[in-house]
């Protein structure tokens, strides 16, 4: 059986189609194993060789990689959810309910999306903790730590904006708690220190900008939807790209 598979692979590897895609043989020789790292857009995020110690699971605990994996998982399941969801306060809740009742695998996609979100928030904290504990933020990696902190924030905000979309009680009130805090921002919140003195009221303050109104309503739902499905994922992806680029440029801090 194995032999047969290998024969098939041998034939496939020689076809014009395979060569046109991969431009080198199957990575079972050192030469091809190096080539695959150069020529594959995803794999070229890696160097060709790493220090032996960098492979130690007990160093990274795979946490950065896992965070990225959860992000990809969220993007995939998120696209599927977007097919069925309309950010209209009159139907958003029912769209989400339909996912659980009438759409094939709707409940599964939603559950995976939600669990991945929890997992990503958790793993990004753990990844940061690991990077701190191994002192990997020290020169020359200071800036990548800064990029990391930005990623931590966008991850949290992504998760939080998604929380509103089901438009159930949990969603509405969790976001209301947050908007109350925005209202209390110093200088730019209507109830924050020096806010009223500077002319902030409920119609022109921070919370108004966030919600597009004075209460969590249709404009807030639309804003959160656009932020959650478009703006924040793009920003996060951009910073992840910078993050990975810098890991390559700065070198991995791994053990001796």
């Amino acid at each position, binding site marked *: 059986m194995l032999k047969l598979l290998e024969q098939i692979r041998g034939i496939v590897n020689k076809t014009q189609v395979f060569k046109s895609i991969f431009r080198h043989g199957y*990575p079972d020789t050192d030469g091809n*194993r*190096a080539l*695959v*790292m150069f020529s594959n857009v995803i794999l070229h995020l890696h160097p*060709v*060789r*790493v*220090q*032996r110690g*960098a*492979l130690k*699971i007990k160093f990274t605990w*795979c946490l950065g*990689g*896992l965070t990225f*994996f*959860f992000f990809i998982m969220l993007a995939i399941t998120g696209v599927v959810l977007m097919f069925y969801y309309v950010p209209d306060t009159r139907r958003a*809740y029912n769209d989400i309910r339909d996912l*659980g009742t009438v759409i094939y695998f709707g*409940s*599964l996609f939603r*559950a995976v999306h939600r*669990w991945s979100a929890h997992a990503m*928030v958790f793993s990004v904290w753990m990844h940061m*903790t690991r990077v*701190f504990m191994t*002192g990997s*933020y*020290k020169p020359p990696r200071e800036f990548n730590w*800064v990029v990391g902190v930005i990623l*931590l924030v966008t991850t*949290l905000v992504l*998760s*939080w904006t998604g*929380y509103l979309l089901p*438009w*159930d*009680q*949990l*969603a*509405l*009130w*969790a976001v209301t*708690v*947050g908007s*109350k*805090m*925005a*209202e*209390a*921002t*110093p200088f730019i*919140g209507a*109830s924050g220190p*020096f806010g009223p003195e500077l002319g902030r009221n409920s119609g022109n303050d921070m919370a108004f900008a966030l919600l597009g109104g004075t*209460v969590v309503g249709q404009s807030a739902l639309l804003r959160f939807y656009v932020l959650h499905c478009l703006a924040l994922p793009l920003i996060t992806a951009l910073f992840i790209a910078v993050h990975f680029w810098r890991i390559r440029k700065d*070198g991995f*801090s791994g053990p*001796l």
Partner: protein
Amino acid sequence: MSDQASDSLSSSPKKNSLAELIKKTALKKIGPEDTVLVWPNLVYLELICMMVATAILLFLSLVSPAPLEELASADTTPNPTKAPWYFLGLQELLVYFDPWLAGMVLPTFIIIGLILIPYVDPNPLGKGYYTFKERKFSMLGFGFGLSLWWILILIGVFFRGLDWSWYWPWDDPHVHMPAGAVKLIDLQIILQNTLGLSEAPLVTLGRYAVTIGNLITWALFLGFYAVGFTVPFIFFRDFYRRLGFVRYNVMMFFFISMMGVPMKIFLRLLADVKYVLVTPWFKF
């Protein structure tokens, strides 16, 4: 690796640690025999990681699907209203601080503080490996902040129930806790009463009536920072010298502010202090 040598110069550590560093650097010469090919070694590891993670996600999703409560309604406020778990630490802080602090200023401090870490830590040791011994202060400082964050989250998730009261796991979550008998008082009132100070304002600045008690709370508040800045400066000269003027002051500002958070929590819990400092525009 050359970068190690250069940062030891730019951050000017003590002489003996420089010597140590050079020794380490010499050891760190890596040849091809210390490295392995990424394909298959790392790529396969990542693949396995992803498959395990997928399996766990699928398992969790099947066991516990995403919740959906009743349709959102502005007319019925759930009790308690909880933010998502990762923000419950901040929400828990609302018990002790006004929203502008708990929801805006402290999170901003956390973010800026995190960003500054690499720029205020000049210690070249402990880069790329786990060590406590070689960087005790930064480990303890970071560990302290992180524990605070997670402990507050755990409290918010597991111990807060109706009316945001404290519920032990064995308490009935559907029965309201009796309203607390404690009255929270501002620190300046406590001072006024215990020291027998006059309530009459010394000066009035617009809406702000400045009493003696109020001035004392200002002195205490500023004194907290002043002591925090001065004590290490005097007693840990080495520490100060390693950091330098700018790093020291930036780092200490965030460090002292961080220590202020549990201090305020204890003042509230042990002495029923509502606000440490009161002005017409902000209180904390």
